[in-house]
C-alpha cells in the first residue's frame, strides 16, 4: 500500500485529487452560508425583515432575550436593530470618504512625487500600517484617544447638556471613525498605487506634451485611467470597514445609541454599536436561543453584504482588463 503511494501518481489521478481538494473550499463557503442562515432563520421567521427597522431600545430587547427559555415564544424574538445597523453604516460612511481621499493623495505621492529614497521607506512603512492587528489599534484607541477626547475635547457643558440621555466619556463616533480610517487607508493605498503605476506612461506624456503641468496630467490622465481600480479599492475597504469587530467594540462606547446629527458637535462624541462589534459583545449569551438567532441574523447580514461587495468588486474590475491591469 505504502509502496503504491510512493510511486509517482498517474496524471489523471493527481488532477482529480487536486480538484477534489480545491472543491473543499467551495464546500466551506456553502457550509458557511448554510449554517449561518439556518441559525438565523428563527429571527427571519418570526420577524420577517421588520427587525431591521427601528423602535424601542435595542439593548434592552437583546438583554431580555438572555432570560428566555429553551423554547422561546415568537414574541421573544422581538428586536428592532436599526440603531446597530445605523451605527455600522455611519462609521463606514464617515471612514470611507476620508480614507479614500487620503489613500488617493498618498498613492499619488508614492507613485509620482516621492523621491526614490523616500519611496523605498514609505512603501514598507505603509505596508506595516496595514498589518498592525486590529486589537493594537483598539488598545491605542481605548487607552490614548478615548481618554484624550473625553478629558480635553468634550467640554463639561457638553457633557452635562446630555447627561440624562447618554454619558459622554470619549468613546464614540469620532474615535471609531478616525481609527477605522487609519485601518482601511493602507489597503486602498496598495491597490490604487498599483493601478496608478501601471497606467501607460505614454498617456501621461501625451498630456504633458499638450502643455499642462505634471499634477494636472496626473489627475486628468493617470487617476482617470485608474478609476476602476479606485472603485475596487473603495469596495474592498468598505468590506473591511463593515466587518471590523474588535477595534470597534473597544472604542465605540458599546451602546446601541444612534448618534443624531442634529445634536451638533456632540454628534461626533455619541456612542454607538456596530453589527460586527455586537457579535463580539453578545457572544457570551449565545446559549439563549432567541439571542443566538438574533446574533446569527447579524452575521448573516454581514455575510450577505460581504458577498454583495465581492460581486460589486468583480464588476468594477472588469474594465481594468482593458488595460491589462491585474488587481
Amino acid at each position, binding site marked *: 500500500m505504502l509502496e503504491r503511494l510512493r510511486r*509517482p501518481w*498517474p*496524471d489523471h489521478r493527481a*488532477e482529480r485529487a*487536486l480538484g477534489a*481538494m*480545491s472543491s473543499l*473550499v*467551495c464546500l*466551506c*463557503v456553502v*457550509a*458557511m452560508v448554510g*449554517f*449561518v442562515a*439556518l*441559525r438565523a432563520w428563527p429571527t427571519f421567521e418570526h420577524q420577517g425583515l421588520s427587525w431591521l427597522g427601528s423602535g424601542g431600545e435595542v439593548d434592552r430587547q437583546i438583554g431580555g432575550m438572555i432570560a428566555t427559555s429553551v423554547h422561546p415564544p415568537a414574541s421573544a424574538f422581538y428586536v428592532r436593530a436599526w440603531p446597530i445597523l445605523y451605527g455600522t453604516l455611519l462609521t463606514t460612511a464617515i471612514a470611507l470618504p476620508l480614507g479614500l*481621499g487620503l489613500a488617493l*493623495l*498618498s498613492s499619488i505621492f508614492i507613485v509620482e*512625487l516621492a*523621491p526614490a529614497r523616500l519611496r523605498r*521607506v*514609505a*512603501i*514598507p*512603512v505603509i*505596508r*506595516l*500600517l*496595514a498589518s498592525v*492587528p*486590529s*486589537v*493594537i489599534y*483598539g*488598545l*491605542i484607541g481605548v*487607552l490614548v484617544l478615548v481618554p484624550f477626547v473625553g478629558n480635553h475635547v468634550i467640554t463639561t457643558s457638553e457633557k452635562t447638556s446630555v447627561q440624562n440621555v447618554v454619558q459622554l466619556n470619549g468613546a464614540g463616533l469620532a474615535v471609531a471613525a478616525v481609527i477605522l480610517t487609519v485601518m482601511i487607508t493602507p489597503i486602498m*493605498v*496598495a491597490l490604487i*498605487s498599483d493601478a*496608478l*503605476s501601471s497606467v501607460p*506612461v505614454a498617456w501621461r506624456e501625451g498630456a504633458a506634451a499638450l502643455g499642462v*503641468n505634471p*499634477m494636472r496630467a496626473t489627475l486628468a490622465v493617470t487617476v482617470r485611467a485608474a478609476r476602476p481600480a479606485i472603485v475596487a479599492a473603495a469596495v*474592498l475597504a468598505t*468590506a473591511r470597514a463593515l*466587518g*471590523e*469587530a*474588535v477595534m470597534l467594540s*473597544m472604542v465605540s462606547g*458599546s451602546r446601541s445609541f444612534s448618534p443624531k446629527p442634529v445634536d451638533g458637535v456632540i454628534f461626533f462624541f455619541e456612542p454607538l454599536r456596530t453589527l460586527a462589534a455586537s457579535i*463580539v459583545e453578545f*457572544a457570551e449569551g*449565545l446559549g439563549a436561543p432567541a439571542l443566538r438567532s438574533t*446574533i446569527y441574523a447579524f452575521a448573516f447580514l454581514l455575510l450577505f453584504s*460581504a458577498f454583495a461587495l465581492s460581486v460589486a468588486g468583480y464588476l468594477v474590475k472588469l474594465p481594468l482588463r482593458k488595460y491589462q491591469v491585474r488587481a
Partner: protein
Amino acid sequence: MSTFVPQLRANRHARAQRGRRSSLRTWRWGDRLVLLGAWAGGLGLCVLAAAIVTYMGYRGIQYLRPGLLFTRPELSASQSHSGGFLDPLIGTVLLTVIGIVLAFPLAIASAVWIAEYGRPRWLARVVESSIEIVAGTPDIVIAIFGLAVFQLSILAPLSFTASGGGVWGKSFIAAGAMMSLIALPPLFTATRDGLQAVPAHMREAAFALGKTRIATIRRVLLPGVRANVATGVTLGISRIVGDTAIVILLLGSTLHIESQGGMPGVNLLRGTGSTLTSYVYDNSPAGEGNASQKAYAAAFVLLLLVLALNMAVDFIGRKHARSTGLGTGAQI
C-alpha cells in the same frame, strides 16, 4: 488583492520634479492644493506608522519585563500579581501552527490545480471566487460560523465539553480550523501568482524530458515558486497572529491553557486557551481585566512579532527578486 511592486519608471519622477520646479507659479490653485495634499498625506501616513510603533515601543519598554514572557498569568486584581503571559504566547504559537498546517495543503493544492489544470473551467472559476469570498468575509463571521459547526454534537470530541455535557464548541482545533480559512487566501494568491509567472518554457522543457504534469509540478514548478510559498505562509501567519475575533469566540480566551481528556497532545488540542491578541483585549478596559500595563506589554510583543513577519516578507521578496527578477506577490 494585488501585488504591490509599483514598476516605476525612474525618469517619470525626475520629469515631475523638473516640471514642478520650473512652473509652480503658473499652476492652478487646485493643482497646488493637490500637490500639497499628496505630500501631506503620504508623509502623514508614514509619520503615523512611526508614531504608533514609537508609542507602543515606549510603553513596551516601560512595562515589559523578561520575566513576563516566562510566567503564567494569574487571576489577580492588582497588576503586580497577575503574572505574565506565557500561556497566551504558547497559545499564539500553537494556533498558528494548527492554522498553517491545515491551510497549507488546501491552499497549495487549489493554487496548483487552478494554475496548472483548471478544468472544468466553470469549477475553477467557482473555486477562485469562493476563495475571494472567504477573503472578503469578516473574521467575526468566520468565527461565529465555526461556533455553529463545532457545536454540532457529532463534532463534540473535537472541542471542550462543559461538565454538564453541553458542547461548547471551543478548542484549539476549532479555532485553528477557522484560522486556516483566514490564512488560506493570501497563501493561495501568492502561490497561484507565482505559478502563473513561471515561464512556459520551463514546463515545456520538463514535458520534453518525458515528465508527466504532476511530476513537473512536484520537481520543477513547486521548487521554483518556493519563495512565493514562503511569502504566502508568512502573510498567513501574520493574519493568524493578529486575529482576535476568532480567538475570543472559539478559543474561549481562558486565563490558562486548559486541557480536556486524558490523551497527551490530543487533550491540549481539545482544550481552550488564549493568545496574545485575546490577552490584550481582555486586559484592556474593554475586557474585564483592566490591566493596561499588561495589555501594553503584550501588545508590544505582538507588534514585534508582526514587524518581524513584515520584514521576513520583505526579505524573501528582495532575495527572490534579485535571483529571478520576479515578484513574490507580497501584498501590502
